């Protein structure tokens, strides 16, 4: 099982921006300990949600060439803590993206209320010994479909985003010349 910290994409514009939602549920076990009798969504999991949203946004843009991993969190400012029943809307955009890294900045709202401002910085570990793929092609595509990327996704020129065929996603080890 993987921990998903976004539930669904509402908008996805390739190479530019995306909107996703996360609904907080009392059935999430960790909320029973954070805190007993007072369930609050941990800020760290909001950051992870932005990392997942940003990682997919950046990864799709570069054709999943390599492994964009969360390398630092330059900014994480929170106004309050969400409770079960809240739906968090994450809006994020790519500030910059290059072969070796990317910065994604975004805001979280609950309704009209600003909840958080987060920046996540990714490094592409293409050229290191850790360059093995974190997901199989099939897992990656299944995840993208499950999160609705191809249901709402648009290319930079506004056409419907089409999923790559299995086998079209480059292998980072091959790209690094080690296979």
């Amino acid at each position, binding site marked *: 099982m993987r921990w998903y910290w976004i539930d669904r994409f509402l908008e996805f514009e390739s190479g530019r921006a995306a909107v996703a939602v996360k609904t907080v549920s009392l059935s999430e076990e960790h909320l029973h300990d954070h805190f007993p009798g007072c369930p609050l969504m941990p800020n760290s999991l909001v950051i992870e949600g932005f990392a997942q949203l940003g990682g997919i946004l950046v990864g799709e843009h570069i054709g999943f060439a390599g492994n964009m991993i969360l*390398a*630092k969190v*330059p*900014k994480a400012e929170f106004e309050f803590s969400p409770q079960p029943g809240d739906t968090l809307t994450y809006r994020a955009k790519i*500030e*910059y993206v290059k072969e070796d890294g990317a*910065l994604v900045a975004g805001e979280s709202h609950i309704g009209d209320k600003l909840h958080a401002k987060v920046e996540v*910085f990714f490094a592409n570990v293409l050229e290191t010994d850790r360059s093995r793929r974190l997901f199989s092609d099939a897992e990656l595509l299944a995840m993208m479909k499950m999160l609705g990327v191809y249901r709402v996704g648009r290319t930079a020129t506004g056409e419907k985003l089409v999923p790559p065929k299995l086998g079209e996603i480059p292998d980072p080890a091959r790209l690094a010349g080690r296979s």
Partner: protein
Amino acid sequence: MPDREEIFSTVREILCDALGVDEDEVVPQATLTDDLGAESIDFLDIVFRLEKSFEIKIPRGELFPDNVLSDERFVQDGKITPDGLKELRARMPYADVDKLEANPDIKEMSQVFTVDMICRFIEGKVGVES
């Protein structure tokens, strides 16, 4: 074309955002690692932010020539060789490499990476109004 104060002001803002430091900590002589707490991944972030803010391209290794420091021709037994210092002067005309003359220990390289060094690098890239 920006003047020196404008360049410093933008660089200060970038370093505050990238490193989470306060404005008053970002003074020209502050070193990125020892004074402002930068780690290796921060250098990549800083380069990207400089590119975006100043609308310039900074090829890998141009501002922070880490490939010089990993070259055994230029670093031996933890010391930067005379050839290494010569290479650094050629590659980093915007930096005060002379301060390494007395103690060329590679660890002292962090003393070269200052806020002022970044400002001088940017001045060389975009020009500066006198």
